[in-house]
């Protein structure tokens, strides 16, 4: 019998997703499927649409996608779901006819990150946030999670504070959110400018994978290591090294490797099952396959890193 043909679609090109594609590779061998990975080079919803259309034309039977704009892509996702099995990962589109969501809740992960900031700054202080862009669903939720946690607000993933909103309550004050549109040089420049502007910054938070190392560079160049805490997201090597060295307080890691592996596993098993009743049973309840985020700090970094190296086969 032919191997099931599957596809794993990301929302941009990033190191993060390279790890995800290792999970895809693992799943290919483990579950006997054929799979392609597609990363939209400019990270736009438009590209994603073209990619999905072409995958369907190619005859792919199952697709796992991280929708760039879940709110407005419902119709498109429904169309895809009509021609192939569809699951979402990394970012959910609950209104669509997707079968299941594989991943974590970015808002909750953001709150987890906020807790790391609280740990790093127990006495409170000024915090500056950095994020690739703010019109991407997962980025907004993540940022909102951090904000809500620091301001001790109730859990409400649909809240959105504008970029220039005044965010101060209790001990913590969020001075600004800088966006760099994935330009690292710009990210570093923004971090430097923030350090120049505020002499009392207590912590800087990088919400995208490549950002914590840039923050670290900036803090180093300003000779404010230790005075300015760095908290991050994801598992960039430099971030992990920073945790080992004690320059980065901690990072929240998702598990892109499992996003890739698990979503393909699910798709493969669904495809092999022809009986729709039994198919239904294969799906997790709530249609949510939780791959929880984890907080990595000095306490657990060594073990985490070793495991990561082993999975990705990198030194």
């Amino acid at each position, binding site marked *: 019998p032919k191997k099931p043909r599957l596809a794993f679609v990301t929302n941009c090109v990033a190191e993060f997703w390279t790890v995800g594609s290792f999970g895809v590779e693992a799943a290919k061998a483990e579950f006997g499927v054929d799979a392609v990975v597609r990363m939209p080079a400019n990270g736009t919803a438009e590209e994603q649409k073209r990619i999905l259309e072409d995958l369907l*034309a190619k005859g792919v039977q199952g697709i796992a996608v991280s929708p760039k704009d879940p*709110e*407005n892509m419902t*119709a498109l996702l429904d169309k895809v779901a009509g021609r192939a099995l569809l699951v979402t990962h990394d970012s959910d589109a609950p209104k669509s006819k997707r079968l299941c969501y594989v991943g974590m809740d970015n808002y909750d992960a953001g709150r987890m990150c906020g807790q790391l900031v609280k740990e790093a700054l127990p006495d409170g202080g000024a915090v500056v946030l950095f994020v690739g862009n703010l019109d991407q669903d997962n980025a907004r939720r993540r940022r909102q999670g951090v904000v809500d946690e620091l301001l001790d607000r109730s859990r409400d993933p649909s809240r959105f504070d504008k970029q220039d909103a005044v965010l101060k309550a209790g001990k913590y004050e969020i001075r600004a959110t800088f966006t760099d549109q994935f330009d690292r040089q710009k990210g570093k420049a923004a971090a430097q400018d923030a350090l120049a502007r505020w002499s009392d910054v207590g912590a800087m938070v990088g919400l995208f994978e490549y950002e914590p190392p840039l923050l670290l560079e900036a803090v180093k160049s300003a000779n404010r290591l230790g005075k300015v805490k760095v908290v991050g997201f994801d598992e960039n090597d430099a971030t992990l090294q920073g945790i080992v060295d004690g320059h980065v307080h901690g990072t929240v890691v998702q598990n892109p490797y499992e996003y890739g592996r698990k979503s393909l596993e699910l798709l493969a098993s669904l495809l092999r099952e022809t009986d729709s009743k039994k198919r239904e049973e294969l799906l997790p309840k709530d249609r949510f396959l939780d791959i929880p985020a984890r907080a990595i700090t000095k306490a657990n970094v060594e073990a985490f890193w070793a495991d990561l190296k082993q999975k990705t086969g990198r030194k």
Partner: protein
Amino acid sequence: MKKVLGIAALLCVVAAMTAWRSYDPVTGEYVFLSAYNLENLLQRIGLFGVLGFAAAFVIVTGGIDLSIGSVVCVAGCVLPWLLKDVGLGGAPSLAITLALCAAIGLWHGVLVAWLGLQPFVVTLCGLLLYRGWMRGFSDDQTMGFGDAAEGLRWLATGKLPLSDSFGLPVPLLALAVVAVATWALWTRTVWGRHLFALGRNEEAARFAGVPTRRLTALAYVACSLLAGFGGCLFVLDVNSAQASSFGSFYELYAIAGAVLGGVALRGGEGIALGVVLGAALMQVLPNTIRLLFDSDRLELAVVGGVILAGAIVDQSLARWLGRVRRR
């Protein structure tokens, strides 16, 4: 005409190769030629072709418009806002959006034609300005119609059924209308003649009594208007516009399509059919890559490489023919 032959040949070769290699032994079908794929492809050609004409209008005057992608972004953010947030109907929303884009074009035209600023500078600033403005305007929120505007979305996603399985995408028809109108304007009317004359030699055209400034300004208006129309189609198609990236780099695709299709950057040369073919090639190549290869990582490399190879072959052939004919 000779210029169009080259691009037509390249397009045919790429399409034929793709069709041949896209044979799927399981279904016994040539995937590239499947109704579904052709519909998608033709729709994209329609969308991007409109932008190609936007670029072409300014290039024939010897200018350039780098702000096309940002004007696409303006249309992509303003149209959903008018429809959903302001709550206007489809037609007025479309009209206001297009009027706004035309005003942007007029502004470019005035700066270039009357104030004598360099088109490259004016539109580069426009590229930054309008995108930045839209980021502020949309508060970095994604703009889209949600479930609204189903009627209007027909413009971008609708199909005119030709057979049971195949329908002609509406954007392709829009492109056809734009292309025929442009062809008539360029080759059959006095304005077209004047536009081409001023594109080649603005001073001589002015001495001949051609209202060069007014025409130049009009070309910029046409450009931004078409870019805005394209932007409306794009946002109606994908139903989601993020100001920071929507339409980003499209000016380059548009210009590349036009130039590939024989619109000369020094001005005063261009064939409407060529622009369509150029846009088609720019859309077929990524389709090819996604259908045939397991990784789309090399997409950009292949697109760039094929265009460059085409340009080199074209130029070498032209030289060689010129040499042979003279003997």
